[in-house]
């Protein structure tokens, strides 16, 4: 009997150090079906798919393809099993044409018969309705054309199982609907398709079935016809969990930074921030929520002077002199000297703000090494500071000179956040400060932020966990595709409300409850 499941995952577990990215996940995908994989940031979707495409190897569990157990050790194995994954970042050779990219790396005769190959590709394209100019070079192509090349490449290589990681993030609505038509054609031809996306309306229009992951666990699955945006949001964010984080009442609240109509472009020239306006106020914590890549990084970097601002202004209100200062156009150093501190914890933790090869002392100096007129660095003060931070935040390190690269993630973050707080800033912006931390350490960080808030510092907290945002912040700004989709009172907002704001752009402009 022909098995109907293209892929079956049984109890798949993957750990990275202490962090469990996937915990005993079971999932199947049928032939001739489009499955949406839904989940918040860090819920383990991409990790799971990377195990299918041979980038990671599972710690436990079985993978069955066409009913047979397999081990996928490398992307090559995945190819041979007919699994093709389209990543968010395309893997194409810029100076080759579409056709050359499609045949690149395939075994075959030494002499390429490009004519025959092109005919074959043309036939495939017609069958599924791709629009593709085979002789166009990649560097001349739009993002959507490049994506088409990636998909055709996979199909040409005989992929029967196609995984797409947020394929519509970079597409216009027209391109998106074209892509969906093609995907439906492929489904009708019996191919299995998994699509990772955050956009609920797309899930509802495209897929046959939805599987939801939450914090590395399988949270359930549902036939799309039985699902609504509300029910999916509930599955995705889960029940409100009581975390019991303290939240002191804000006092002496005054506007510290005013962001007015700021627009920024990313490196592809697409608007990363679109006409963003909001206030950062002293004595309170402003939470920022959003799907990954909705503009969180750009907002903070624009304020810190690290991101070029195309239009709009960012005004700093000095509480002592009552003067107003325009931050746009100032260098990062000038902005930091005004008292705006940024601690950004990127995915790799070290890429920004810390020097991996230096010890704690060396990293403390990053802010202050210029002080004093001497040609040489003064290590006495930074040493004292690292000693204090080590004790107060209980940083586990063999010595102050052990390279921070060798510390565990939590300790690295304590060093970073501790240093920024030690500079007694007026505005403290943190992004993903508790990324990958255990519970106790997370609470230490929340406590630190609350202490800053009580001291009258304006705190901005970009976070991934909605429960934390709801309990820690005073106000929550929700971003959706680079736009402010709402600013809500964290004391009264619900998790579902925020979840919806994150995934569905309000047509009537941003919701404002402040």
């Amino acid at each position, binding site marked *: 009997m022909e098995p109907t499941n293209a892929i079956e995952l049984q109890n798949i577990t993957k750990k990275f150090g202490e962090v469990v990215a996937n915990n005993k996940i079971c999932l199947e995908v049928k032939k001739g079906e489009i499955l949406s994989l839904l989940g918040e940031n860090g819920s383990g979707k991409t990790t799971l798919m990377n195990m299918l495409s041979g980038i990671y190897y599972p710690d436990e569990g079985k993978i069955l393809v066409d009913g047979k157990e*397999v081990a996928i050790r490398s992307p090559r194995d995945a190819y041979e099993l007919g699994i093709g994954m389209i990543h968010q970042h395309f893997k194409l050779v810029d100076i080759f044409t579409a056709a050359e990219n499609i045949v690149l790396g395939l075994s075959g005769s030494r002499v390429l018969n490009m004519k025959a190959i092109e005919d074959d590709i043309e036939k495939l394209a017609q069958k599924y309705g791709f629009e593709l100019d085979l002789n166009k070079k990649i560097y001349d192509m739009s993002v959507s054309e490049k994506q088409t090349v990636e998909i055709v490449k996979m199909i040409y290589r005989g992929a029967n199982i196609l995984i797409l990681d947020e394929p519509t993030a970079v597409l216009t609505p027209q391109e998106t609907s074209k892509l969906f038509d093609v995907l439906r054609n492929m489904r009708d031809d019996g191919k299995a398709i998994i699509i990772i996306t955050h956009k609920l309306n797309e899930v509802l229009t495209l897929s046959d079935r939805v599987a939801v992951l939450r914090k590395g666990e399988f949270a359930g699955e549902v036939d799309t016809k039985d699902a609504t945006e509300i029910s999916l949001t509930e599955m995705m964010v889960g029940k409100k969990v009581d975390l019991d984080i303290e939240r002191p009442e804000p006092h002496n609240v005054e506007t510290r930074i005013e962001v007015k109509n700021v627009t920024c472009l990313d490196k592809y020239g697409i608007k990363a921030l679109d006409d963003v306006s909001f206030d950062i106020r002293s004595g309170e914590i402003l939470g920022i929520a959003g799907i990954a890549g909705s503009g969180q990084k750009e907002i903070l970097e624009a304020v810190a002077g690290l991101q070029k601002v195309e239009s709009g202004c960012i005004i700093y209100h000095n509480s002592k002199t009552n003067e107003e200062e325009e931050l746009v156009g100032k260098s990062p150093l000038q902005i930091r000297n005004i008292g705006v501190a940024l601690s950004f914890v990127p995915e790799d933790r070290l890429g920004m703000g810390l*020097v991996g*090869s230096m010890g704690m002392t060396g990293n403390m100096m990053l802010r202050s090494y210029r002080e004093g007129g001497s040609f040489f660095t003064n290590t006495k003060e930074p040493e004292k500071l690292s000693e204090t931070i080590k004790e107060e935040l209980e940083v586990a390190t063999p010595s102050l000179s052990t390279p921070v690269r060798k510390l565990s993630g939590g300790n690295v973050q304590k060093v970073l956040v501790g240093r920024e707080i030690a500079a007694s800033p007026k505005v403290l912006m943190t992004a993903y400060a508790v990324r990958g931390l255990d519970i106790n350490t997370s609470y230490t960080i929340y406590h630190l932020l609350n202490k800053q808030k009580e001291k009258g510092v304006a705190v901005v907290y970009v976070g991934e966990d909605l429960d934390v945002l709801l309990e820690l912040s005073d106000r929550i700004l929700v971003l959706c595709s680079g736009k402010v989709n709402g600013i809500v009172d964290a004391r009264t907002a619900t998790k579902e409300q925020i979840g919806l704001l994150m995934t569905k752009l309000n047509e009537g402009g941003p919701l404002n409850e402040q």
Partner: protein
Amino acid sequence: MSNKVLNQEPLLRITKRDGMPKLRAWGIRGIAVILSLIVSAAVIFLIVKMNPLKVYATMVSGAFGSSRKSWITVRDTMMLLCVGIALAPAFKMKFWNIGAEGQILVGGVATAACMIYLQSLPTWLLFVVIILASIAAGALWALLPALFKAKYNTNETLFTLMMNYVAIQLTSYFVALWENPYGSNTVGIINKATNRGWFPSIFGKQYLLNVIIVAVLAVGMYIYLKKSKHGYEITVVGDSENTARYAGISVKKVIIRTMLISGAICGISGFLAVSGASHTISASTAGGRGFTAIIVAWLAKFNTITMFVISLLLVFLEKGANAIASMYHLNDYASKMITGIILFFILGSEFFINYKLIVRAKENKEGK
């Protein structure tokens, strides 16, 4: 779909170590040296049927057999170390300065030019001018790629490499210009009669000044990299340009400043090679040291004190290899093989210090 059964974990997996205690790391390096000597001994015995111990003894006496030989070994070690010192700040900043060879050459050409044209200056002034000229020449050769890197983000590896060829051609031109005697196609020994611009002997030792200059540079660079604000900035830029930007460090400024220093010290190496050693200039004055010094700098992890040990080892191997080649009428390749084996083991040991191998667990072996 292939009919291969794909359900085995890979046989060997490589994972990065979190770091190793220093003592153990040096232990592994020590074992590597011993292993390399054993393998070399086996090779010597199998190929030329000679007593390996005798061959090793010849190597030692080739490098340190007499006072004169020892001093030449020291002189060449200092020369290589000087280039290593020059490269350390650039490579620490992750700026791939492959152009030391050219920077040395132009420094040497500048030195030779001063020795030829400015003979009439008082000795102290002549040396001041030579030093300034060689520094300026080397720094200029490094400045060009640095400027282009900072301004247009050009690839510094290719740029510095190509600058080598320009320097070689330039040197050939000056060799032709200064040819002496006519028709020899070499410059000959410059100021042979007057010794103008030659390093003076100190306490009767001809090469002591070389040692002093390089020692000062080594200590200076050690302090510069470890203790100065500039050195701090170099480390930050080399580790992560994002972090540097975040800290308000001007990456462009650091790149240009560091390369000026790197090129200047390469220029001084050219000065040492001409004024302090050969007293002549040719396209082979740098003699590949610009490349060998890259190994020196990386192996020592930019610690100039460790660099001395590694330079000495490399020069010793070279001298020793030459000695066995002439002593036993072996051709050059046989001795180079031994050098190669020893270097292979030492470089290979770094792999085992930084990574470990995980062999597939037994129970999976029978899995089908």
